[in-house]
């Protein structure tokens, strides 16, 4: 393994982990409010297709990213309306959101498969970017990667040190008690759902506008689900989500590592690794039953119906 290879692997690890980090941050906030939205995959796909089409037609990456987020938000609002206003089961509604998003994105994007766009380029700072090993990883990424660092810092501060963060956690732990002391349960949950949608849209946009940059049907390939597992893996702790996202980034690019080491393994078998890693991690973390019950937000997945 030479230095160039290590440099590239570290670079790709962060880059591949970025969409996972962004979605998982959104889902973390959402779950902290007691809402389990399994529709991440559907929202990401809508973000990806809308971002791609907008950028292709307008030529503006910024507009593409913005409307990708709007698409994610609109999708999350469907979820919000059905689960909050109509008290539908969150698991079933989340699944529906994924199935719907998969279908709708494929429908909308069918004319755009394989069309080329100029994606978001990585930055290049003379000297710094060219440093061996850490140069590309830290100083040669694209802007969204740096934005995801900021996002991490903001979410970390929000959950651990801010008053609204406290409200969010109170609502997620016990919505009835929160309601009784006058905290806005519904509004908090709506905002959390919307934030989750915006992040899923952004992550989807990142895939189609920077990572690939292409649109293909079902291009998220389960990343929304992996992000859900990441939140469990992180025991709902922000800093562990960051670590987890990059670790899964590494698991997804292991084919690079294997090539570098000179192994020849079937690409299909290597493609299984992130999913396999997800299962292994889930098993290790959830085998301690009492512990996993303590770390999850108490009201996660339960609808709140205010009796008035």
């Amino acid at each position, binding site marked *: 393994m030479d230095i160039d290879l290590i440099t590239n692997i570290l670079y790709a690890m962060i880059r591949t982990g970025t969409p996972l980090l962004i979605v998982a941050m959104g889902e973390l906030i959402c779950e902290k409010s007691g809402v389990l939205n*399994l529709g991440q995959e*559907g929202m990401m796909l809508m973000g990806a297709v809308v971002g791609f089409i907008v950028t292709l037609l307008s030529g503006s990456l910024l507009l593409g990213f913005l409307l990708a987020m709007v698409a994610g938000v609109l999708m999350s609002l*469907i979820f919000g309306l*059905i689960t909050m206003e*109509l*008290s*539908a*089961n969150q*698991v*079933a*509604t989340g*699944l*529906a*959101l994924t*199935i*719907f*998003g*998969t*279908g*709708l994105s*494929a*429908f909308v994007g*069918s*004319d755009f498969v394989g069309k080329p766009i100029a994606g978001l380029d990585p930055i290049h700072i003379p000297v710094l970017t060219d440093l061996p090993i850490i140069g590309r990883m830290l100083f040669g990424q694209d802007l969204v990667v740096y934005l995801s660092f900021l996002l991490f810092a903001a979410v970390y501060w929000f959950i651990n040190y801010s008053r609204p963060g406290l409200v969010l956690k109170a609502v997620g732990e016990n919505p*009835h008690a929160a*309601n*009784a002391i006058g905290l806005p349960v519904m509004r908090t949950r709506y905002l959390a759902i919307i934030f989750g949608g915006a992040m899923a849209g952004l992550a989807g946009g990142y895939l189609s506008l920077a990572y690939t940059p292409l649109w293909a*049907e079902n291009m998220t*390939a*389960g990343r929304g*689900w*992996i992000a*859900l*597992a990441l939140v*469990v893996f992180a025991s709902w702790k922000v800093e562990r989500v960051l670590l987890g996202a990059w670790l899964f980034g590494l698991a997804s690019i292991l084919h690079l590592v294997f090539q570098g080491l000179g192994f020849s393994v*079937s690409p*299909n*078998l290597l*493609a*299984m690794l992130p*999913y*396999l890693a*997800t*299962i292994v991690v*889930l*098993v290790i973390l*959830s*085998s301690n*039953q009492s512990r*996993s019950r303590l770390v999850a937000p108490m009201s996660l997945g339960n609808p709140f*119906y*205010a*009796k*008035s």
Partner: protein
Amino acid sequence: MIKLEPRGERSTTMAYLSPLLAAFLTMLTGAILFTVLGIDPVDALITILYVPISDTHGIAELCVKTAPILLCAIGLSVVFKAKIWNIGAEGQLLMGGLFGSFIALQLIEAEGFWVLPLVLIAGVIGGMFWAGIAAILKVRFNTNEILTTIMMNYIALNILLWAVHGPLKDPEGYNFPESALFGDASLLPILIEGTRVNFGIALALLAVVAVWVLMSRSFYGFQIKVMGMDAGAARLSGFKEKRLTYFALLLSGGLAGLAGVGEVTGPIGQLIPQISPGYGYAAIIVAFLGRLHPVGILFASLLMALLYMGGEMAQISLGLPLALTGLFQGMLLFYLLACDVLIAFRIRLKPKKAKTLQPLATETQG
């Protein structure tokens, strides 16, 4: 002002009406969508919902497509009754197809009535094996089955791709990712001459009856239902929760596996990368739409099969993307979930009143 008011008890009428309402709203939304796209909505709906089954050939194809959906959905109805979220019917179906294909390819020259049952059993075992892993992880390690079964769908697909690109690839197939064609002895017999209707639909109907007997006439089925409604009550009654979980997951996995092997030994006749256009996911919608009841699921499977055919028809004659099927599937499930609110709530139209401040005490009752 529209207001939702709790009914106090669940409305059985609404439980049966809700899927019909959802299907109607899906069609209505579809009609609006077609109008926006500049397509005559009536013409489009006829193309999707009637033209595919307007002749005997179409009806035969409907049976062919219904079989795998029905098998997966009837299995899912059992796990869902137990409140176990098996989202992995797709992966279990693929593993069934893969296991069955493996045996069929070993017996490509074999003759005799025993070949087909052996291949089918291999498929069932494939599906059970895949669901069994999720069951062990759930029972022994308390791992969330939604995430494990979803992950295993992706893993199954990659194993299938590996197999058709590698060990099971037809050596004389010009390097296409396909297996050799199976021998005649491993193929499901055709039921009606001149069509593709095969023994698969009979197996599916048999499964429907068997599951109906199991769930409504047996103590095992009763225990599964109780476990789903109130796990605590089931435990207090001494029901073996772990054994029931294994049973339900293995049953649904086995049926999905049968669906998979039924596809490769039925309409396809070899192992290819695309065994299923998402039948395992569609079956989730079917199970809900059919109210987890065998008869409901039978009708919902027919509707879902029709949606697949309608999507293909719309692509051919209207030039719409094939993804139309997925879009309709998603809408159908959304509308169903939304309409289901009417089972527990009724709509009250109230004259809009000026907002009054309510005393705090009434707000804290809940």
